[in-house]
């Protein structure tokens, strides 16, 4: 369709713009990886060693910026992200591959869970307006989502890990345990992920819940809902298939965007629970002026978000006939 084709072109242009900004922005920052290294060394590295490291890092500041940019575009196209500076000389791709599954797993799953739960509760809360669910849950969950995350995570560790001992206090699986595809390892992963997942879900349900509830209230006043009631359809069927399906449409775009941002990890979660994900890697890369790693992670996030927006647009076109073109007025 013409709409989708237009979206694709827009996608490619935005991607190129993002790549270009991704290249130039870190290089505009003051300092540089060599200066950062020098401060850490505090004078215990010879100037010759520093120079060789500069060359090895590829931070050759004498080379023309435009030539570097062309080189960068070519490397990206071939999937070559180079060697990390802060984890020198491990290839960036390798570092990313180690952190990616944990971020996708924890943040991806919790995003889906919090969206599903928030939408469901919002739907029910709007249907039974003034009822118990509507009076208690939205305000409570919205307040909880305003808690400072770091504090909330530490409280949960204090209560459930240090206090009751139900869950481990950090890491993705038991220390020293071999990484294997086995039930016991899966059990470990789930046990370790329970507390971080809980804290992330609880603090993000509030947003989904509110928007869904408000959309539902607007949808419930539509004529076709009244028609469905008059027809005598069961309340459950009306709530889910008639009102809910239409009310959730605006949220789909938001959901797709947040899926895209899953790859930026959850920095605070990873710090509090020592979870080996992408968020902390990104933070480290920025602090250590590790251009290759920074660029690779920014690229991942950008592509993911752009792809997510594209998917959201496609989904909207598929789900909502009103967006398809001029036939419907």
């Amino acid at each position, binding site marked *: 369709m013409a709409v989708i084709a237009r979206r694709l072109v827009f996608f490619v242009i935005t991607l190129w713009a993002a790549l270009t900004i991704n290249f130039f922005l870190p290089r505009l920052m003051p300092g540089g990886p060599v200066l950062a*290294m020098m401060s*850490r060394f505090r004078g215990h590295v010879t100037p010759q060693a520093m120079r060789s490291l500069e060359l*090895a890092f590829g931070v050759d500041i004498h080379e023309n910026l435009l030539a570097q940019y062309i080189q960068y575009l070519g490397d990206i196209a071939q999937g070559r992200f180079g060697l990390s500076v802060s984890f020198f000389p491990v290839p960036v791709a390798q570092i990313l591959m180690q952190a990616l599954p944990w971020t996708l797993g924890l943040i991806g799953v919790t995003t889906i869970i919090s969206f599903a739960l928030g939408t469901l509760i919002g739907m029910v809360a709007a249907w039974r307006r003034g009822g118990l669910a509507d009076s208690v849950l939205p305000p409570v969950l919205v307040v909880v989502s305003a808690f400072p995350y770091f504090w909330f995570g530490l409280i949960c560790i204090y209560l459930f890990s240090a206090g009751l001992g139900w869950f481990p206090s950090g890491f993705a699986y038991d*220390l020293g345990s071999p990484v294997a595809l086995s039930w016991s390892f899966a059990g470990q992963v789930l046990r370790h992920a329970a507390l971080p997942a809980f804290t992330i879900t609880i603090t993000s349900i509030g947003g989904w819940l509110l928007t869904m509830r408000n959309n539902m209230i607007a949808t419930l006043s539509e004529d076709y809902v009244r028609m469905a009631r008059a027809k005598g359809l069961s309340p459950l069927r009306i709530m889910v298939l008639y009102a809910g399906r239409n009310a959730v449409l605006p949220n789909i775009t938001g959901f797709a965007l947040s899926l895209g941002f899953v790859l930026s990890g959850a920095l605070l979660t990873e710090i509090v629970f020592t979870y*080996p994900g992408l968020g902390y890697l990104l933070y480290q890369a920025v602090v250590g002026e590790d251009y290759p790693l920074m660029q690779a992670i920014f690229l991942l996030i950008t592509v993911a978000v752009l792809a997510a927006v594209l998917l959201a647009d496609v989904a909207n076109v598929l789900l909502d006939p009103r967006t398809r073109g001029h036939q419907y007025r």
Partner: protein
Amino acid sequence: MIGFLRIPGSARRPAWPAALLVAAIVLSSTGAGARTAVATRAAVAPVAIKRGGTLKIVTELGALWSCNFSPFVPPVNATPDSWGFIYEPLYFVNGFAKPGMPVETGMLATSYRWGAGARTLTFTLRPGVRWSDGQPLTAADVVFTFNMIKKYPALDLAGAWQVLTSVAQQGTDKVVMTLKPGAVPSFPSIAEQTYIVAQHIWSRVGNPTTYVDKAPVGTGPVLMQQCTPQNITYVRNPDYWQPGRPYIDKILFPAYTSNPPANLDLSRDPGDWGGQFMPSIQSYYIAKDPQYRHYWFPPASNNDVFINLTRAPLSARALRQAMVYAIDKQRVSLIGEYGYEPPADQTGVLLPVFGRWYDKALADSYGYRYDPQKAISLLQQAGFTRGSSGIFQTKDGKPLSFSMIVIAGNTDSVACVKIVSDDLRKVGIDVKIEALSGDAFNARLFTGDYDLAWSGVGGGITPYYELRNLLDSANTAPIGKTAATNWERYRSAEADGLFDAFAHTTDSAKQRKIMGQIENVMLRDVPVIPVVQGVWWFQWSDRVFVGWPTPQNPYANPCPYCAPDLDIVINNLHLR
């Protein structure tokens, strides 16, 4: 200072500086005499030592593991996790040795000898050492390692080839190195900070600068069993060259990315080797098990106020001397650093650990202490006049108003700087604090774009290294260019000559005399003001493992991120 990687004493450490091995120790006999290695054994009679146990190291690295065990990795984020665990150097030098304790202990070498005029250095290798793949360690491995470092300068993190001219094998078990003049203080760079690798493996890796060592083959007490970004598991090396050692079976080294989770684990588990900054350590850690839990924070290097000597009126010596009297170092230590970091001495000599280098009579003759009245009178004598606002002015009417830069992320540094600036304001010197990001701070400090700055340089096993870093004109650069460590831009032919003289002699009496003269430079010219002594973090419990280094028995630097001292500690720990 053993680990130059860790910037000691700040609550939020940016990264591990590469482990800086202690610099040359004062040889307590004449240079050309033979030195025999004394194997370090803890003073424990080995009566039925229990074997086994899993030790966990709890220290906040601020980074996840990259699982690259190459000992030549530039330590941007963390120390190579193979130093001391898997790879070992020729010698271990104990900077904390008390009188009567061995200072140097042979590891892969059993003895060394200086040639005439300290122009050659001959090591005799230890027989019977095997790599973890079964091959024997030979002199060829040592020669290969040094020559490989020479060929690829990026590997020379210790700076060994700044003083070496050649390394060659002699006979079957000796390695002869020829050196440039004045190389005696560089002994630790060569013997302790250069880790030996196997020729039969590293000769086939292509470019060692970019080689990722995933399955390291070393001579050390443990083998790498498993590495993930969140944890490294080491297991006992059954063929280690010290028979019977190590006693422990397993070591877990998790990658904690921030302090609170690490402190939580440390406060709960009794079998941990802690290297943590802990606020309120008495109530949070010690009180939970006071009979068995201890902590010891040995000094590492000073945290100083750097003064930009090229800017008037800071170039006036009297002003700098007055500033020393104005600062209440005890209060800075107590409030800024929880009392963990003791006040520093103006000589820059760490006390009490370097007491044998300290010229007390000289320091007392200057009489620096906290005395705001003396500071004010010194300023008045120097010709500054106090304005109506309470701030002193120069003769031209310019107020003594300066800015002090500090890294914003280091909360303890910021606290210290606040107290220093308050103290200076009380005596009529106005100081404004600029808390900058790490990069902006570095850029300004290195290029000399500041009035005052809070920072520190690395040290070594004698005060020589820290003071040379601070004062030698070879370590500085003109304003606008990047200086290595002498950021205050101190230049004096006198100081340079003293450091060279120190480096050229092995006579310990002469060295002490020269050190006294260097201390005089610090006392007289006040190029920087040492305020508190940065420390190494160390906590331990005797409930599960015993054999730790203690202030009474400091057989090694106890911090778990200090190599190769951790090698010695691993070999001495055992179950209770």
